[in-house]
């Protein structure tokens, strides 16, 4: 028998390989993130001071929506070609295998957002002292988005009309991350401490790490039973 860690690694590497093979698709959420965030200056006002004050919110909402779009990558293709079935039949505890799939998803979809975010900060006139908080909050927050999103992706994976459904299921659950993430950046911009925000996001990350893979496995088992 093969060890659990080897199976997790194999799952992780497979998903990264697949993402690498479909490089074009990989860029879509990122481009979406850029475009959506640049709509705000056009829609609201290009005044740098005003933009700077709402930039944390814009960037965080943009990251949230981009993650939401990318959740389709997680299980949908696997479900359509039957590899999800074979995945669920792996003789290792599924909770951990799902966790490594989610981790791969974050590397593919979440991490690029964290890296691009400072660029958007510059374009939106984010105060200089807020960049560390921006990166930090996104670094802790985007994995939570992937973890919570996995539950929704698992529940909707077999559905033909799942596309519109997923945001309805998941967005309300994203609210705490949005609140703490955006306000961390805002507070940092105003020169205030952000320890509390970071602590909350960290705690929430651990909490979702414990809960979400379990719920996702239950959801996936349901979805293949259809």
């Amino acid at each position, binding site marked *: 028998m093969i060890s659990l860690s080897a199976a997790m690694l194999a799952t992780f590497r497979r998903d990264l390989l*697949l993402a690498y093979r479909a490089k074009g698709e990989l860029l879509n959420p990122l481009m979406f993130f850029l475009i959506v965030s640049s709509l705000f200056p056009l829609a609201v006002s290009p005044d740098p001071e005003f933009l700077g004050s709402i930039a944390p919110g814009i960037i965080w909402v943009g990251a949230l929506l981009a993650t939401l779009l990318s959740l389709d990558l997680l299980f949908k293709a696997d479900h359509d070609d039957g590899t999800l079935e074979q995945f669920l039949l792996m003789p290792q505890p599924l909770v951990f295998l799902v966790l490594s799939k989610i981790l791969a998803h974050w590397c593919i979809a979440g991490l690029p957002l964290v890296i691009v975010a400072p660029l958007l900060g510059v374009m939106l006139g984010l105060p200089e002292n807020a960049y560390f908080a921006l990166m930090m909050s996104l670094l802790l927050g985007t994995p939570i988005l992937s973890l919570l999103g996995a539950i929704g992706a698992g529940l909707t994976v077999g559905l033909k009309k799942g596309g519109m459904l997923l945001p309805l299921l998941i967005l309300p659950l994203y609210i705490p991350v949005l609140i703490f993430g955006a306000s961390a950046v805002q507070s940092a911009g105003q020169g205030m401490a952000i320890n509390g925000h970071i602590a909350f996001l960290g705690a929430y990350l651990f909490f979702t790490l414990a809960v979400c893979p379990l719920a996702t496995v239950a959801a996936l*088992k349901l979805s293949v039973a259809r």
Partner: protein
Amino acid sequence: MSQSAWIEARNLRCERDDRCLFHNLSFTLNSGEILQVAGPNGAGKSTLLRILIGLSAGYEGGLSWMGQDMRAGRYDFLANTLYLGHQPGVKGAMTPEENLIWWQSRFSKAERNSVYAALEQVGLRGYEDIPSYHLSAGQQRRVALARLYLQPPKLWILDEPFTAIDKAGVTRLEQTIVEHAQRGGAVILTTHHELPQSVPVRTLTLGGAQ
């Protein structure tokens, strides 16, 4: 018989959409046996296989693996079982070689040579590094079937394995199934394909008599 059966089903009962697919279904499967699940369309053949493999939970009754309850012995069961469903489970963006290596990695470290040998067996040697979406439907089926030739698990659960396979491939597959049983493995399959007399098969018929 001192040893417990590989698979033992006791009084299985399954309902779908208020319709009873089967009830009081009991059977055993042992080393060296080939069991064909037969019946008309919609009789619940695929459903039965999916219940056995654990992809479908909507049933009542008892199922055990090597004398142990199926749920308790799940990891041991999965470590010894190969399931082939309606979908080939072959990733288009990956080459046949990558597909097989990923699949094998759940059991043991996959070796390139054994993967090549398996592809040779299904007549796909030379295709190993072509992305699978370039292959035809039949060839993709063959990639899935190549799993039978990798260090094979003891128990095969095959749902319509002969679909989209050409004549020569069918003969080859029949032979493989018989050989697997002779080596001490066990096979449970559904098919509408007429198995030749040379295949020693036990039949379990679903539907009709309700």
